[in-house]
C-alpha cells in the first residue's frame, strides 16, 4: 500500500542511518511525516537532513508534555513537511541550537526560550524576544502548570 513512496524512502533511510536514535516514525498522510528522535542526535540529524535539502525551517513548536518538554522542528523540502520531534526533561531543559546549520531558526528558538524556558546551547542571543523586560523569572507562560489565573496573580505581585 505504497501511496507515498518518496516519504517512505526518506523514513527508511533515516531509520537505517540513525539506528536506535529514531524512536518513532509516522507517515500521517502524503506530504506529512513525523519523526521522533533522541535529543542527543539532534545536531547530527538536522545536519544530515540539511544535506538532503531540508534547509527551510518553517517554524519550531514548543510543547508541554507533563514531565518533559517537547520541541518540534517543522522542516520543508519540495512538498514534504517533516516534523522532527525531540523531548527533554522539564527540570533541565537544554538542547543544542540548530542556528549554525539553519540560520533561519534564530527567532523561533528565542520564542521557545521565552515561552517554555528551553535553553538552546550555542544560540547567539537568547535575550527576550516577546516577553517584557520585567517579566518574572521562571514564569514560562505556555507551560501547562501556569494557568491563566496564576499568571495574572503572579504579574500583579510584581507590579508592586
Amino acid at each position, binding site marked *: 500500500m505504497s501511496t507515498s513512496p518518496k516519504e517512505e524512502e526518506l523514513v527508511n533511510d533515516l531509520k537505517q542511518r540513525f539506528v536506535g536514535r529514531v524512536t518513532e516514525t509516522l507517515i*500521517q*498522510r502524503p*506530504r*506529512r511525516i*513525523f519523526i521522533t528522535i533522541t535529543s542527543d542526535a539532534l545536531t547530527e540529524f538536522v545536519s544530515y537532513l540539511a544535506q538532503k535539502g531540508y*534547509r*527551510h*525551517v*518553517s*517554524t519550531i*513548536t*514548543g*510543547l*508541554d508534555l507533563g514531565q518533559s518538554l517537547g520541541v*518540534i522542528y*517543522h522542516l*520543508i523540502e*519540495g*512538498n514534504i*513537511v517533516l*516534523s522532527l520531534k525531540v523531548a527533554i526533561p522539564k527540570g533541565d531543559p537544554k538542547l543544542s541550537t540548530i542556528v549554525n546549520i*539553519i*540560520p*533561519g*531558526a*534564530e*527567532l*523561533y528558538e528565542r*520564542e521557545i526560550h521565552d*515561552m517554555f524556558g528551553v535553553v538552546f546551547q550555542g544560540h547567539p*542571543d537568547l535575550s*527576550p*524576544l*516577546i*516577553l*517584557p523586560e*520585567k517579566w518574572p523569572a521562571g514564569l514560562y*507562560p*505556555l507551560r501547562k502548570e501556569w494557568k*491563566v*489565573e496564576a*499568571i*495574572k496573580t503572579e*504579574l*500583579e505581585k510584581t*507590579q508592586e
Partner: protein
Amino acid sequence: MSESIFTVPVGPQHPALKEPENITLTLDGEQIIDAKIRLGYVHRGGEKALENRTYVQNLYLVERVCGICAMAHQLCYANNVEALLGIEAPPRARYIRTIVAELERIHSHLLWVGVAGHEIGFDTLFMYTWQDREIALDLMERITGNRVLHATNAIGGVRRDITSDMIPLIKKGLTYLGERIEYYRKLALGEKTIAKRAVGVGILKTQDALALCAVGPTARASNVRRDVREYDPYSAYDEMPFDVVTNDGCDVAARIFVRIDELEQCARILEYAVDHLPEGPIKVRAPRSVPQGENVSIVEAPRGEDIHYCKSNGSDRPERYKIRAPTLANWASMRKMLIGGSMADVPIVLAAIDPCMSCTDRVAFLDAKSGKSWAWSYEQLKKYVQKHYGE
C-alpha cells in the same frame, strides 16, 4: 570603536512605524552596520487562549490573529481541525474558500502597494490603491457579510453560500480591478519615484533568503520559488490555473513587481473559480470533540507561508495550538536587508516585507500610559469595555 558609531533605537513608538516593534540600529554615519530586533508589544496570549476554548470558539479567535489576513488564518485552522477529524469540506465550499482567500490577497496586496507608495513619498499611489481596494472589500462583504473578519469558514465547510445574484457583481468587480492592475504595472515600471527609491534598496540575495527561511512575496522577489498553493495545494488550488510569480531583482522594487504580478494571478484564479463553481452542499456536519492526534496545516497567506500545528487530546479543546504567521518568518531576512543600507531607507525596507505585528505577536496587556503590563480576566475586560464604550 570609531567615534562615528552610534546606536539609534527605532520604536516601539515611532512616527515612521505603523505598528509597535523595536529595532535597535547600530550606525556608522548614515550606514547601518547592525540591527537588533525586539517584538512582543502587541502579544495577546493567543496560543494560551486557544488551549482554553472549544474548537468552534477558536474559529473566531484564530481569525483575530490578523485583521488583514483573517481568512488565511481561519482557513488554515479549519483545514487543521478537519484533517484531525478526518472530514473534508464539500467541493462548493472549497471553491468558496478559494474565492474569499484570493479576494483577501487582492485587498492585502493593494493595501501594501499603497503603504509602499506612502513610505517613498508617493502618496497619490496610496490614495489610488486604497480606493481600488474598496472593490475587493465590498465583494467580500457581499459574499461573507463582513468587510473584515469575514468568519467565512465553519469546521467542515463555509457558513454562507455564493448566490447566483452575486456572480455578475463579482465579475464586474474583477473587470474593473483587472484594468487597474494593468495600470499599476505600467506605473511601477515607468515611474521615476519608484525607480529612485526602490531599485537596489534592501537587498536580500537568493542564498540569504534560503538560509534565513524567507517566505511569501519576500522570498519570491529574491527568486525563491516557494508558494504553498503550488507545493501543498489546499481548498481548490489543485484545480486553479495560476503561475507562481518570481523576480530575480532581490530588492524593494522586485517586491513591488512580484505583488503587482500576483494581483493579476489572483484575478485569473477568481475568474476561473467563479465560472466553475460546483453545485452542492456547502458544509458537512462535524463532531465537537476531536480524536487524539496531531497535524500540521499550511496556507499561503498574502504575506507568505502561514503554518499552524495542532495537537488534540480527544476533548473539545486543543491540547496545544501553535501559530507561526508569515511576518515572523521574514524578520530574520529583514535584518539582513537593513544591514549595509542607509538610515533613510529604513521605513521602506521595513514596509517591504509587509510586516504585520499583530500576526507576529500573539500572546498580556500593556498600558501604554503607565508602561505596566498585566493579564486581564474576561470579566475585567468586559467591565473595561462597558465603562468606555457602554450605554
